[in-house]
């Protein structure tokens, strides 16, 4: 089951999302669809090997992306 989340690049810089995708490439496939207003839709598909840990993978991916985003945001304040 794919999960979608709308993110705002004002909060999640593109680099943070990119790093999270790379870090989680063995666990899930993430499609990024640009949306108007500097936003993007993330569609997260957990790989079958980790299907029994779907919630953990999806939420960990989002936490990782947020961690990276916050590091960038705090460095720029």
């Amino acid at each position, binding site marked *: 089951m794919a999960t979608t*989340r*709308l993110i705002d690049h004002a909060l999640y810089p593109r680099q943070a999302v990119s790093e999270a995708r790379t870090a989680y490439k063995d666990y899930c496939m993430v499609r990024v669809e640009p949306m108007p207003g500097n936003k993007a839709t993330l569609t997260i598909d957990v790989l079958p090997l980790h299907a029994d840990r779907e919630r953990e993978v999806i939420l960990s991916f*989002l936490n990782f992306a*947020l961690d990276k985003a*916050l*590091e960038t945001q705090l460095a720029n304040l």
Partner: protein
Amino acid sequence: MRRMTRMPRMLHMPQAGTEFLGSDITDRRESGGFALTTDALGDAAILTVDLGIFDRAAVFKAAYWVTDKVYLYFLPFGGEGDMNSLKIEIRPKTLGKASVEQLARDFANSLIDFQTRQIVLRETAGSRDILLHRAFGEGHKHLNPDTLS
């Protein structure tokens, strides 16, 4: 630091009809200043933080501080140019072990702690700079090893 026991007024409930994009919510209720929702990923609490009251730095630091304990997700800002409030979704790392309501309250307290630190940082910036200048300013006397006593 003195602990605050009341929920801060600035954490208010999302308005009725607010759409939380990307989440197929199966249940939604409101409790003590935040919305509680349930979707395919389980229970979540959604706090709305007024950025006119809380500094972004405080919000970001509080979030960074707790990401090892809870799952967080920042919902997109509202309409065009509306960056005055931020909605934060909070979920437990393990289902059934902690109440999302309690996690939300803990996060709200952490937010107040970090905001207080921001205020203290601002208020003491001048004194801090003077102290640092005096402390490290002495170093220039020791740039030449011949002057070391």
